Each structure stands twice: as structure tokens, then as C-alpha cells.
């Protein structure tokens, strides 16, 4: 038996031994070596269950199924691979030619992004922020720890935190705008990237990304993120797996504890300084649906008339954007805003809604029939007269 503070020291010596074992066994390609099987760790610091006498751990294995010889499927064509192999890697592999300016980026941003990501990428509601100010300065906040309620936390946005700019370009092209992804042109993606670099007050090869800046592939590849060296273990380079294995062989690197079961503390294990830490200010309890363990019949919500149903759907699916200013969508109840829209004629209003317009996806992203959708539009229009 020993006290907690000694545990870490012992863990360290265990880790050192384990690290030596790993270094040896993996270089000799001993993935299934039965001699080392007991001590062998996987890349994550866990345990390997090699197949021994037809079983891996508790599971039987038909080893004859593992030998290959299958003729399922076919070779993809070159065009098929090209159509799907569109990822963008840190060295620029997959990044197409193109260009876009901060100015154009701002226009696309205002039309398609601001409703969720807020002005200048500052975020809105619980949607993620893209920038919080000067990236180089904010990178310095990453050591911040909110150990008391007043402390500022680390700022983890694109400019201050992300290690590679390639991620930004790739994700905007494939994942954004979120309700209708893969609809932006490559030039628009360059423009949006330029705008986000601008809002993060970043520079490329010593040149500030200002309002006049025009980004292209060549310049994009010169972006050095302020926090490029802020991550461990190292995953780049030809022998990176070796380093990753070594990293996870040492429990001190990632906050875990190792111990021989017989040596674990069973009595008087605590420092006198520990206290009972309680939920502050009532905690979080706005659960959806509310917490209940009651076993009764569900209450059936009666929908009295179509108007009430439309109202309910509006509140569940549309209010998020149409209920608040600053989301870019006309606010229900804002008479002048809706008058401008209905002036185009209801046929156009329906069509724009069904097809999507500006930042709004088709049918607002809601899963509704055309008729049902139109009834919601009617509700919103009537409420705004």
C-alpha cells in the first residue's frame, strides 16, 4: 500500500519498461509473436489479443477466412477514383487551382454563412465561431486554464488553434454551407478562406491578409498556422507511427494511470486536501425531453386545427432562423420585411422556400411535404401581416 503521489512515480517506471518492449517488438515485426504477446501493447497503449489456438480473447476465429482469395467487387475506374478522391492534404495534395478575394468572400459569407457563424465569424448561439480576433495573439491563450470561475479559457478557433489550413479549405468545400454542402465553387471556397483568414487577422508569407487580398493556390500553400507546433504526438513524416506508439506507451503523456492490481491503494488513499465538489448554480437540467422514469401511458398531443399544427412546426423547425434578428432571415412579425417578400407574389414565395434562397436550404432543411411546407409559409406570412 502506498499513497497517491507515489503512484505516478511508479507508473513512470512501468511506462519506461513498456516503451523499451514496444520499441523492440514492433521493429522486428512481431505483431503475432506469442513470446511477447503478454506484454505487447497496441499503438494506443492497449493490449493485443493475438489468435492463440483458434481464439482471439474469448472469441473463436475461423482462421481460414482470414487468408484472402476473395473476388468480390471490381476495380474502380480512374474517373470514379477521381470523383471521390477529393480530400485536401496538408502538403497541398488535392488542392485545386483557383482564386478568390476577401471582398468576394465577404459577399458569399454574408449570403450563406452569417446566419449561423455570426458577424465576422464570431459565432451565434451555440453555432461555432470561426474567429475571435488576432490569431497569433489568441494562440497564446491556449495555456489558459479556467481553474476559477473568473478565469479566461483558451480560445480554440481556426486561426488560434487549427494546425493546418488545408482543413479549412477541405471542410468548406465538402461540408459547408451545412444545410446544402458541396454547392460552392472552388473560387468561392478560396474567397471564403480568404475572408476567414482576414477575420482572424492572419498573414501569409509576411503579407497581411487585408481587405484587398486575393488568395490563390500558390499563396494558400504558404499559410503557416500559428499553432502548427501545438500538437502531440508528432504524426508527420515517414516514421511517425513509431513515435505515436512510443507516446501512448507512456501513461504520463495522456493522463492515465497504470498499476499492478496488488499494489493499488485500498485504504486511506486520499490526500487530506480533497473536498466534495458540488454542482454549481443548479447545473444543467434542461433536458429534451425532460427527465422522467415514470411508466405510464404517453400523453397524446391533440392537434386541434391546421393553423395550430403549422404554428407547432414553425416553432420546431423554422423559428431558429426566422424568430430572431441577426440570422439573416426575415423575422416573423416584421411586417415591412414580409411585405417586401410577398410583393413578389405568393407563387414566388413558395418557390423560393421550396428551392431554398440565400442561406436557407430547400424547405428550410425541414422534412415536409410540399403542401405542409406551404401551410407553414402561409402561417408565417399571415402572422406577419
Amino acid at each position, binding site marked *: 500500500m502506498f499513497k497517491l503521489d507515489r503512484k505516478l512515480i511508479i507508473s513512470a517506471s512501468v511506462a519506461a519498461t513498456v516503451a523499451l518492449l514496444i520499441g523492440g517488438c514492433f521493429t522486428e515485426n512481431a505483431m503475432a509473436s506469442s513470446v511477447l504477446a503478454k506484454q505487447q501493447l497496441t499503438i*494506443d*497503449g*492497449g*493490449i493485443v*489479443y493475438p489468435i492463440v489456438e483458434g481464439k482471439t*480473447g*474469448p472469441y473463436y*476465429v*475461423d482462421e481460414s477466412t482470414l*487468408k484472402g*482469395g*476473395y473476388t468480390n*467487387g*471490381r476495380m474502380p475506374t480512374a474517373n470514379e*477514383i477521381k470523383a*471521390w*478522391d477529393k*480530400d485536401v*492534404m*496538408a502538403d497541398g495534395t488535392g488542392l485545386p487551382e483557383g482564386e478568390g478575394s476577401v471582398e468576394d468572400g465577404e459577399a458569399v459569407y454574408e449570403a450563406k454563412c452569417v446566419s449561423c457563424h455570426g458577424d465576422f465569424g464570431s459565432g451565434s448561439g*451555440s453555432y461555432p465561431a470561426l474567429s475571435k480576433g488576432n490569431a497569433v495573439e489568441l494562440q497564446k491563450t491556449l495555456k*489558459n*486554464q*479556467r*481553474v476559477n470561475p473568473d478565469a479566461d479559457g483558451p480560445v480554440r478557433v481556426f486561426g488560434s488553434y*487549427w*494546425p*493546418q489550413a488545408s482543413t479549412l479549405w477541405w471542410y468548406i468545400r*465538402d*461540408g459547408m454551407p451545412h444545410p446544402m454542402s*458541396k454547392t460552392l465553387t472552388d473560387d468561392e471556397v478560396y474567397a471564403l478562406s480568404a475572408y476567414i483568414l482576414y477575420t482572424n487577422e492572419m498573414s501569409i508569407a509576411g503579407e497581411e491578409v487585408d481587405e484587398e487580398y486575393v488568395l490563390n493556390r500558390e499563396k494558400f500553400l504558404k499559410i503557416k498556422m500559428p499553432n502548427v507546433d*501545438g500538437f*502531440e504526438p508528432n*504524426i*508527420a513524416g515517414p516514421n511517425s507511427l513509431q513515435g*505515436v*506508439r512510443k507516446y*501512448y506507451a507512456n*501513461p*504520463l503523456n*495522456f*493522463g*492515465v*494511470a*497504470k498499476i499492478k492490481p496488488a499494489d493499488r*491503494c485500498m485504504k486511506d488513499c*486520499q490526500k487530506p486536501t*480533497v*473536498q466534495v*465538489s458540488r*454542482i*454549481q448554480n443548479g*447545473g*444543467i437540467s434542461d*433536458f*429534451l425531453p425532460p427527465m422522467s422514469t*415514470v*411508466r405510464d*401511458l404517453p400523453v397524446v398531443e391533440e392537434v386541434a386545427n391546421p393553423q395550430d399544427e403549422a404554428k407547432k412546426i414553425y416553432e420546431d423547425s423554422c423559428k*431558429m432562423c426566422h424568430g430572431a434578428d441577426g440570422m439573416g432571415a426575415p423575422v416573423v412579425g416584421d411586417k415591412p420585411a414580409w411585405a417586401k417578400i410577398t410583393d413578389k407574389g405568393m407563387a414566388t414565395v413558395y418557390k423560393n422556400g421550396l428551392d431554398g434562397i440565400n442561406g436557407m436550404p430547400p424547405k428550410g432543411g425541414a422534412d415536409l411535404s410540399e403542401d405542409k411546407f406551404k401551410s407553414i409559409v402561409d402561417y408565417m406570412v399571415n402572422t406577419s401581416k
Partner: protein
Amino acid sequence: MNDKNSLENSISNDKILDRRDFFRKTAALSMTAIAGTSIFASEAVVDDSAIMHHVPWGQKWGDPVTKNLYGMPSEYEHNVLRRNTELLASGNYRASIAVTPIHESMGIITPNGLFFSRSHGGVAHVDPNEYRLMIHGLVEKPIVLTLEQLKRYPSVTRTHFIECPANGGQEWRGPQFNSLQFAKGFMSCAEWTGVYIKTILEDLGLKPEAQWMLAEGSDNSEMGRTVPVDKVLDDAMIVWGQNGEALRPEQGYPVRLLLPGWEGNLCVKWLKRLEFATEPWYCKEETSKYTALKPTGQAVQHFYANEVNSTVVSPSPEIPWTDLKNGQLIEIEGLAWSGMGTITGVDLSFDGGKNYVPAKLKGLVLPKCWTRWSYMHTYKKGDVLLLTSRAMDDAGYIQPTVDQETAVMGVESVYHRNGVETWEVTAEGKVNHVQIRS
């Protein structure tokens, strides 16, 4: 709990193995019952109408078997649901999570409808006829497979938990949720059926310089993650079956990646493409998120396995002890799991981790799988308890204390929190989530 169960529990609690002892013990119990001691509750004051009257479902036809050709839970179970909360909404619940009611969990399998649901662009609905899986990059022979062709590979069935690495991640700076569902419900456990990726690679010929695999989903966020080949060649699977049926859309129907024990986020859903390369990708969900910031300012990236962990399930804030009688024999039950191996033991503390006693493992104990554990306790009305569980695995890991873990990881890392968890049982039998820390 009814009288019959109390009796069975008291019997099983004493280590009676032999038949003769059993009868002797039963006789002794009958004697004490007759003597009117506390083994049985006193006789009811009024007759129970649930017994005295015919019940409505007992006097008329039930449903024909032709109704509900895909069965549904009893209507009375309507509160057993996945739940969400505004904090986790990420706007409009598309890049969000609905968590599993593990306070209602039984055994080690989560029913498919309650399996936690996390997506990054909403739950995609994939047409299985249009489904294709492409494997290419540093392989001698790239391949494209339809769903039917994929399912022609020899199948492997394994029971594994999947855990979001942010399970408990809202509570690095102190407890926030007075709820087991929200404190630990970012995980579930199921029996998965699919094929080992290494089996497919036998015929494709992985080139020796390949170090990393990109796994990419076909959903609107094109969710991708980078996987080291070590895992691909160990136990990584491409799965299409979940608890004996097709994957649910929330789990990536028709096909997802399964990396046993690793971050749920790495188990890419709606899987469309695997590519092998020498250098890793920098996907959005392995840079902006799923990286654990330490007090040094360095963040752990490619943080793979969910570490050894455990929780008390009963009692919990949702299942308090307010109905227990003084002296009642009650099972303290919990779950333990490790993404790095197999659970070897669980200790339970009644004083928040100062002193521990070993608990018992129950049922099947499988690698990288939920494991049930139990401890029989005689409840003393008015006692205030701090129930803390601490699990160990066969890779040699043990759950750290909150202080031990935060000493290395700080309080801003969000992911991979596996420090011990504590429930306070109040004098009234209510249960509160607390943490024991300096």
C-alpha cells in the same frame, strides 16, 4: 423490490453452494418470517386491487400477431429515450448528440433504438442500392464494392461499446449534470457484425509504405478521420449489422467503420471511402475538435482509445434509494469498460475514494465491452454515502482520481476524461452527482 427478490438476494448473498445448506437456510428464513422479524414486510392493510380484480388485458383479445410486424416497446416505456440538451445542440441539433438512458440499461447490450446518436451533419438516409465502398490509395489493387458484395465477405461478430470521447467532458471543472444519462450516457454497447478490414486487404495488397488510412463518410459533412495502419491490421472492422439487424440510420446505415475501443468519432458512419497514404490527413474532426488541450498549451491529437472507466448505475440520480427500507438488502450495480483491453476488476468506495472494497464482476466479461459489476449492500436509513467506483483492465490501467488526471490534462481538454465518478447518497436516499477533488 418485492419480497420474493429480497429472499433470493439474501440467499445468494450468503455463499451457500450446497443443496442441504440451501434447505437449512430456507427453513431458517421461514422461521424468522413466522416470528415476524424484518425479512418480510408486514401484511398489507388493504387487499391490492391489482390482485383482487380482473385486469383489462386479461379479459379481452390482445392484438393479432399481424399487428406490429416490426415490434415496438410497450407504450408504458415511453420515457426510456435518448435525450439532448441545449448545451450540446451546436445550433440546430444536426452536429449534435442524443445520449443513451444508461440508468435504464440492462446487461451489456444497448437496444438499437436507444444507442447514442452523434452526427456532424445530421443523420443521413442512405439508399442501400446506391451504396458503394471504395478502397484505394497505397494498395496494389483498388476496389469498389456494392453493399451486397461487401456482405459476401466472411462475417465476424463482436460485442463492443462505442463511446464518444466527450463522455463526461462537460465536467472537467466540476460536476454539471445531476443525471447518469448526461454524465455518462455518451456511450452504448452492441453486438456488431461485419468483416475485418485486414481480410479485405489480403487481396488488395497493402503497400509497405502505407502508414495511415483515411475513412470518409458520405453524409453532408463528409465526416472523415485518419487511422493508423496498426489498428487497421489488428481488429478494425467494416460493419453492417447491429444486435442482429441492419445498422440503424443513426449508426451509419448501411455501413460504418468500427475501431473497437477507440473514440466513437473514429468509427466513421455512412462509410464510403478508405484511402491509404504515407502521411496523415488533417480532417476537421481531428484538429478543431477531438484534440485534448493540456495545461502546457500542447494538445493531444490522434487520441485513440477510450481509457478504463466505470460508473455506478444503481443507485444514480435517476434511480435513487428513496424507497428503500432500513436494513434492506440492495444491489449496488454498475458498468465498467475499457477501450484498451478487458476489465479485470472494479473497486467500490463508500467514502468517495478514501477506502475501497472489491466489487464482483457479473456475466460475460469481454474485451472492449461493457462489463457489469455488483456489490451487495445492507441499506441503513439516514446514512450519507459517497459511492465511487474504480475499474482496472488487463492492459494494466486503473482509473485515476480526479486530481491525478487533472494534474496531467488540466481542465480544458474536453476529451477522454476517465477519472473516478462519485454519487452522493443523501440521508433521504436521494442521489447527487459530486466530484472528490482538491
